[in-house]
């Protein structure tokens, strides 16, 4: 499937329209939904990069999110403005990924999965007791509020979220069309053959891992600018793993547009189930099990299988043909 350059125009148009939302009077609750959608989309894109394209089922997104959130929060207590804290959060998450990559990539398959699961659990335990700055936070362990964000309104955080989501899509897009994307797909399909074809498995996995950690970190930190209170249970909550995982599985693992569809559904579900408290977790789990058992290729996978893209694609190509003809 050749992607016509019309998609670039369409993507930019969509981006501009979305960017105008806060200015043209879209309701605050919609801005809320969309902000969360953007954050979940960024997380899902990165989880898809790891699981769908590199073959790494990583169970530690909540480590990256929590670390970045805490970096941001603690940063604001020691005079680091939240704008810097945002990037610093991503950097800390990326550095963490770099540090653990050596032991973690020695593990294959299920060992890797459990090995990555250990990290957020250990961090959760650590942050329950480690309190580097400030006084006790309402006696609930090492929680922090993010200071200095009072002046930030929803419109600003919305744009931040939009930028992060767009960046995540862009990053995945260029990786897939670059050397790295070919290498990652080779690793995912057959690691041994990839190695014997000259691919440095460790190095490529590392690139993928660190990039994913960085963007997940930034997305997480952005969330904590929007909701400026963090504690160990929230920062390292399993939801930060469940959401991108669900979005990827429902949308379609290893498919570029999968996370977009999946994140939309997951955000919608979140709001639908918001009033049901703990039952919402139960229902999400049920949906996950059903989807992976009945529709493992995800929605995007299903759409591709039934050729749903053929008609719009023909329209696209016809339109592009006309544009090029007229510009001559």
């Amino acid at each position, binding site marked *: 499937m050749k992607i016509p350059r019309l998609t670039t125009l369409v993507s930019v148009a969509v981006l501009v329209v979305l960017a105008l939302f806060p200015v043209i009077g879209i309701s605050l609750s919609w801005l809320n939904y969309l902000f969360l959608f953007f954050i979940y989309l960024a997380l899902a894109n990165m989880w898809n990069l790891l699981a769908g394209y590199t073959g790494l089922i990583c169970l530690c997104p909540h480590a990256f999110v929590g670390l970045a959130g805490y970096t941001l929060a603690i940063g604001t207590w020691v005079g680091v403005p939240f704008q810097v804290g945002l990037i610093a959060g991503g950097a800390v998450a990326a550095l963490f990924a770099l540090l653990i990559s050596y032991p973690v990539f020695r593990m294959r398959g299920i060992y890797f999965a459990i090995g990555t699961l250990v990290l957020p659990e250990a961090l959760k335990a650590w942050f329950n007791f480690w309190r580097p700055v400030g006084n006790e936070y309402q006696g609930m362990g090492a929680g922090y509020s993010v200071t200095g964000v009072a002046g930030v309104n929803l419109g600003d955080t919305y744009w931040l979220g939009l930028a992060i989501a767009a960046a995540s899509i862009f990053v995945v897009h260029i990786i897939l069309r670059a050397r790295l994307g070919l*290498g990652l*797909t080779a690793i*995912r399909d*057959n690691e*041994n053959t990839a190695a*014997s074809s000259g691919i440095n498995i460790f190095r490529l996995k590392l690139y993928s891992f660190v990039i994913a950690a960085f963007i997940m970190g930034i997305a997480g930190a952005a969330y904590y600018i929007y909701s400026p209170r963090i504690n160990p249970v929230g920062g390292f909550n399993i939801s930060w793993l469940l959401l991108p995982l669900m979005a990827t599985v429902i949308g379609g693992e290893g498919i570029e547009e999968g996370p977009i569809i999946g994140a939309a559904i997951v955000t919608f579900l979140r709001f639908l189930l918001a009033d049901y408290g703990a039952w919402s977790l139960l229902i999400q789990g049920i949906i996950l099990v059903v989807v992976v058992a009945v529709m493992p290729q995800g929605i995007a996978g299903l759409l591709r299988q039934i050729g749903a893209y053929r008609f719009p694609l023909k329209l696209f190509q016809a339109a592009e043909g006309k544009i090029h003809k007229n510009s001559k």
Partner: protein
Amino acid sequence: MLETAVLSVDRVTKHFGGIVAVKDMTFEVQAGEVVGLMGPNGAGKTTLLNLIAGVYRPDSGRILFQGKDITRYAPHKICHLGIARTYQIPQPFTSLSARQNILVAATYGGKKAAGMEHDKIFDLVNLSEQKDMLARDLATVSLKRLELARALASNPTLVLLDEVAAGSTDAEIPRILDMTKQVRKMGKTIILVEHVMKVMMEAVDRIVVMDKGEKIAEGTPGEVMKDEKVLAAYFG
């Protein structure tokens, strides 16, 4: 040990748990040679290939490639130096097309890889019609040829072929012999593991025979087939 040897395997031994897979294996391959590796099932042939390719590390002994000690090198590094291998049971990149499969080896196979023309490779292995088909949709016969194509794509000096002829019909044998000849004409050195006798006898200059992990004979096809130890290993 001659300096001109492309590959020098020097007293290599490999255990797996209590089993000795390869024992004290020593032989050399000169540039441009086609050397056959023969032996009954379980003789250690594929293990030896894996040792050369860096998948396993020898417990003792050395492996030298063009004079360089590659005993402890990782598989990707060995590929960059110029050794490529095929797998007995094809191991393609299933979600990629045939063309993309060899593109992987061409992209990552090291500096020399740029020198190979992909269309020529596809012609050589007779896969030109199926260039754009996904690997997962190809028949086993085509996949075997894709293995060879991928191995050639990194422009190696030494090619390790693991049973390229397995499962082929008699009609396909001449094609396989022809492919081997053409690879040889490209100036490459070949180590060939094969059970199909016709290919073994006609494609190679020299045969090394293994049994139970050890070398039991070495020589021209004619010599080796008359060797008592070889006959004993196969026919008891």
